[in-house]
């Protein structure tokens, strides 16, 4: 399992290439999700997102969430890369990739971890536009998806 929280832009291609090349013979499926910064949100234009985190705590919590997903879905390996700091449109915010024997486990694991990251990972996101900032908090849909997962 590889969990990275970083304040610099990253290459999705390079991260995925390194991750998938290290796979074992038992891997039958790789599922991925990439979340990108958009230039528009429900409230208007977005010049950048700024992600705060709690150093020393965020990394531990993301690893704890990731480990639980690995165990629940019997993954062979899991990659999580999550940005902090200023992220501009088109840049990746988060990359999750799961290696499993079969597609069902890999796909379910990626979806589940994303639901947990949205509501349970210690990050705080602000949209910046025209010198104004606006905190982004989980939507009702995010909360509903998380609630459906149980504890």
């Amino acid at each position, binding site marked *: 399992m590889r969990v990275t929280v970083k304040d610099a832009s990253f290459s999705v291609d390079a991260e995925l290439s390194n991750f998938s090349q290290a796979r074992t013979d038992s891997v039958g499926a790789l599922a991925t999700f990439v979340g990108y910064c958009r230039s528009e949100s429900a409230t208007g234009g977005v010049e950048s997102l700024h992600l*705060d985190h*709690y150093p020393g705590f965020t990394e*531990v919590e993301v690893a704890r969430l990731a480990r639980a997903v690995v165990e629940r879905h019997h993954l062979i390996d899991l990659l999580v890369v*999550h940005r902090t700091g200023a992220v501009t449109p088109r840049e990746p*915010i988060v990359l999750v990739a799961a290696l499993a024997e079969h597609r069902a486990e890999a796909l379910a694991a990626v979806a589940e971890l994303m639901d947990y990251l949205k509501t349970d990972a210690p*990050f*705080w*996101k602000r949209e910046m536009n025209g010198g104004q900032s606006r*905190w982004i*908090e989980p939507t009702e849909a995010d909360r509903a998806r998380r609630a459906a997962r149980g504890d």
Partner: protein
Amino acid sequence: MTRILFFGRVSDAAGCSEITTEIPRELRTVGDVRDWLAARDDALAPVILSPTVRAAVDRVFCSGDADLVVDAEEIAFMSPLSGG
């Protein structure tokens, strides 16, 4: 001395991301610290008293406001988390 950290909306309301302070000995729980901070700062009060603001003591999420803060080195108050 105890570091008190503020994240998300809480940092805006506090006007800073952290303070280092001596917590009065009679404050024993997270709820006591919330009330104490709210009483010191009118702008912070409505935010830090919100039930959506979670706390962590020494980098462990609290299960509720009854969790103890005695001898805590670091207490964090966090508006709703928003990763991904």
